[in-house]
């Protein structure tokens, strides 16, 4: 490396921001592309009933409404229902508009196309659909019973199952202490501030340009092509600025394909932007697991056996959510070296919104379960929960460590992470204050929650493409297959290129999310981007610098070894003789295309301490402080990495305390707006205390692991445990999330028989 001072590891402010903070980003609904001139507005008529047979649809009144160009129902479609996930049963395919049945509130039933957006809402109200209601299936155990089937031809409500062998009835035979707990890892809405949106325009060349809000343009292109039965090469898919995803925008939604089909059918561009109420029932949701967890060990604090039995909710039409228990099983033992571990998962369909990825996607569910189990075990043997954890973590000399879920942890310092966060939080002092409050019988009690976690990042796709090109004017273009939606890749990838080329980041443009420009890419999810796509940019830039030196050697009649690349030029060491990269690019294209394959996932880890204040009279808990060690290896840009941690921590606090998607027994959504869903504001959050720790992975040259989901995975159990810990002296051992005031109050009353 020939740069004097490294840009890596420095707090570089984002180059995205000047536009984002002046005219604003350009999301799909903001597009003014001329290809969308005269676009029709799509309004979807959605089912208000969870489970019903459709007996009739009358579109005549709607068709006469002002501005209506077409009203389309299933009878007009020539595309077959889509299997929304490769492993989903073929019998559980979803029609693009409901055919004979609806299976969740929010399922699209008819498409109304109008000249103006407001006209669509008027006309949609005039579409008359006759429903013959069927019993809703909301509860996962009810779904498993199979008395009411969502898909009669499937023969059951089971979308899939994961188990290596039957459970061993002797698993806990050696244990002095065994604790079992049923837990709910509740359904959550991803709720990115920008909902789903798509716009399609077909050209005379038989190709369609499709703009949509997605985390991976290339996969979305392929998915839509598959659903529509067309060649992926016919689709030019562009992800403009994307207003948050959190996993829920992985791939394409069936609505995107419908927009594409409608644009072709009506021979006009079509635009669709969902409302928030549509989003809260239509966009995939996260979590949704019933867990039965059993932990056993001896009274010295050694955990000897652990079992987790999961029922996971796939929602009405199985999508990625049906696969996520795979990760829950892999990560079941977490940071602990437990001799015997068993797990099973069964995934069921219910008459609710489909599930998919949401920040953590299967791993927070594993961590929440094992962390609660450690607390229950600690309480049972009367040992400090931090002490029990440290006693059972994987020792540093055991890496690479194959866990009982069959995955290989690359590197880790778990006990050190716990010690570090305990010290930063002043753990002993907190315990002393807690004891004092308990002694005094204060109304506001202190709860302290400790969590330790390890997670999988970069586990979906190990490979990523990058191209780096220097232009004649000295500017640089980076093409990446990753697809940022808030993470700041334009800045981070520019830093990686600048590191080798010495070109200021302001002269480096990072392009992504355009399938014509970048035909191959796996997008941004699973905290994969830096350790795959970022490393590809880093390597491509390094190779480009070498290429520049080789070419400059001929030109300058110097030895390659005497040449350095710095400040966008190649110079002969110790002289002012040199040539700029721009000049080299003027002579011959100066570009490198490369692929980086990490070959394996990486396993970032950490430990959190949450401190809550809980009013025992109302049951209301407030997070007072949260301390987090999140070790994802060397940090490229602390500003961005901290931002990722902050967002994750907030979503973890939100799951532990506030959020839950709720349906009534008839399958009616009770949290279908932001007025009803407990999305936290700044007033519900504390400032966060982050502690640095960096343990590199050997899997890539910069040592980086993923940081995107760490906060969520660590904070959720820390906060949940803190709430329970605040009332543990009253005899409470477990409270399901969200630990709402009502649940806390009920738990206190149950534990004390109303005598507290």
């Amino acid at each position, binding site marked *: 490396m020939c740069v004097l001072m490294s840009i890596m590891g420095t707090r570089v402010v984002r180059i995205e921001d000047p536009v984002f903070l002046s005219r604003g980003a350009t999301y799909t609904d903001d597009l003014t592309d001329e290809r969308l001139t005269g676009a029709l507005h799509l309004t979807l008529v959605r089912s208000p009933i969870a489970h019903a047979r459709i007996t009739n649809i009358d579109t005549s009144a709607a068709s006469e409404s002002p501005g209506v160009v077409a009203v389309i129902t299933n009878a007009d479609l020539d595309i077959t229902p889509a299997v929304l996930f490769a492993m989903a049963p073929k019998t559980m395919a979803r029609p693009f508009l409901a055919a004979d049945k609806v299976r969740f509130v929010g399922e699209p039933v008819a498409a109304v196309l109008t000249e103006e957006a407001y006209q669509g809402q008027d006309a949609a109200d005039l579409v008359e659909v006759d429903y013959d209601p069927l019993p809703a299936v909301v509860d996962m155990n009810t779904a498993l019973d199979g008395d009411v089937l969502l898909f009669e031809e499937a023969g059951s409500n089971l979308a899939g199952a994961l188990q290596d062998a039957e459970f061993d009835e002797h698993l806990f035979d050696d244990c002095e202490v065994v604790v079992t707990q049923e837990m709910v890892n509740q359904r959550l809405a991803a709720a990115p501030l*920008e909902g789903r949106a798509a716009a399609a325009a077909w050209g005379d060349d038989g190709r369609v340009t499709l703009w949509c809000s997605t985390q991976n343009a290339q996969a979305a292109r392929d998915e839509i092509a598959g659903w529509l039965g067309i060649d992926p090469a016919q689709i030019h898919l562009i992800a403009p600025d994307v*207003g948050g995803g959190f996993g829920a925008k992985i791939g394409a939604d069936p609505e995107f394909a419908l927009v594409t089909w409608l644009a072709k059918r009506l021979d006009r561009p079509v635009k669709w932007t969902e409302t928030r109420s549509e989003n809260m029932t239509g966009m995939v949701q996260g979590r949704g697991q019933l867990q039965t967890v059993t932990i056993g060990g001896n009274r010295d604090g050694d955990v000897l056996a652990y079992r987790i039995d999961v029922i996971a909710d796939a929602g009405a039409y199985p999508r990625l959510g049906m696969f996520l228990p795979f990760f829950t099983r892999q990560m079941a033992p977490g940071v602990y070296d437990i001799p015997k571990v068993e797990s099973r998962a069964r995934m069921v369909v219910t008459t609710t919104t489909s599930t998919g990825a949401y920040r953590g996607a299967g791993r927070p569910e594993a961590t929440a379960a094992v962390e609660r189990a450690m607390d229950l075990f600690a309480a049972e043997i009367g040992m400090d929960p931090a002490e029990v954890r440290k006693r059972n973590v994987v020792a540093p000399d055991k890496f690479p460590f194959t866990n009982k879920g069959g995955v290989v942890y690359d590197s880790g310092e778990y006990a050190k992470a716990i010690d570090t966060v305990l010290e930063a939080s002043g753990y002993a002092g907190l315990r002393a204050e807690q004891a004092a409050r308990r002694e005094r019988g204060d109304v506001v009690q202190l709860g302290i929650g400790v969590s330790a976690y390890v997670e999988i990042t970069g586990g979906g796709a190990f490979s990523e493409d990058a191209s780096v090109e220097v232009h004649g004017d000295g500017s640089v273009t980076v093409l990446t297959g990753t697809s940022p939606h808030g993470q700041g890749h334009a800045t981070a990838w520019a830093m990686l290129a600048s590191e080798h080329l010495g070109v200021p980041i302001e002269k480096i443009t990072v392009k992504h999310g355009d399938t014509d420009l970048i035909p191959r890419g796996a997008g941004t999810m699973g905290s994969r981007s830096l350790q795959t796509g970022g490393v590809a940019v880093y390597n491509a830039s390094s190779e480009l610098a070498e290429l520049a030196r080789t070419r400059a050697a001929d030109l300058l009649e110097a030895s390659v070894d005497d040449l350095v690349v710095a400040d966008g030029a190649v110079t002969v060491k110790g002289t002012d003789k040199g040539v700029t990269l721009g000049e080299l690019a003027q002579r011959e294209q100066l570009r490198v295309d490369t692929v980086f394959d990490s070959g394996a996932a990486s396993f970032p880890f950490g430990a959190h301490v949450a401190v809550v204040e809980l009013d025992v009279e109302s049951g209301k808990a407030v997070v007072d402080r949260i301390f987090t060690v999140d070790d994802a290896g060397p940090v490229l840009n602390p500003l961005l990495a901290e931002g990722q941690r902050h*967002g*994750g921590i907030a*979503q973890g606090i939100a799951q532990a305390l506030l959020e839950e998607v709720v349906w009534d027994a008839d399958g009616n959504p009770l949290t279908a707006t932001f007025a009803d869903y407990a*999305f936290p*504001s700044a007033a519900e959050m504390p400032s966060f205390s982050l502690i640095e720790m960096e343990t590199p992975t050997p899997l890539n040259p910069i040592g980086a692991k993923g940081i995107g989901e760490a906060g969520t995975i660590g904070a959720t159990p820390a906060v949940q445990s803190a709430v329970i810990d605040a009332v543990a002296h009253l005899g409470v051992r477990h409270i399901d999330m969200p630990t709402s005031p009502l649940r806390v109050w009920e738990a206190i009353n149950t534990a004390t028989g109303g005598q507290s």
Partner: protein
Amino acid sequence: MSATVKVDMTVNGTGTSADVEPRLLLAHYLRDVVGLKATNIGCDTTSCGACTVLVDGESVKSCTVLAVQADGTSVTTMEGLEEAHPVTAAFRAEHGLQCGFCTPGMVMASVGLLSENPTPTEREVREGLEGNLCRCTGYHNIVRAVLAASGQDPQAATAHPSRSGA
């Protein structure tokens, strides 16, 4: 809908005028009639604040105001802030934005907050921005940005009060 109504309003210092449906929301007037796309719409229940703009200097959620109600007023959107405005500068310096969708509303709500309370405490910032939702930042850096924009040291202003004597 049949009859239209003529509205006149100043948007970011420039006069605008249009015949609009009485039901047209101010947010849609700004986005679709005037063509200023920074103002986003993130919900349909006045909960998220992504559409926050200033009407005659006061921050309002433009998805809950009809264009006709804003007739004769002066509206400021994020596009109308001067370059290097202290609030936008602080949002950048403190990394107070990620995906950017809540940002125009968050920035305008912050401008409104600081005009009413030029040196707020951390708690006052958090409560003052309660009507603006962000899914990306956990609010940590947004709060720091507003404190910094008010001329305070965000590190000192968010320091946790001592527990001694608690």
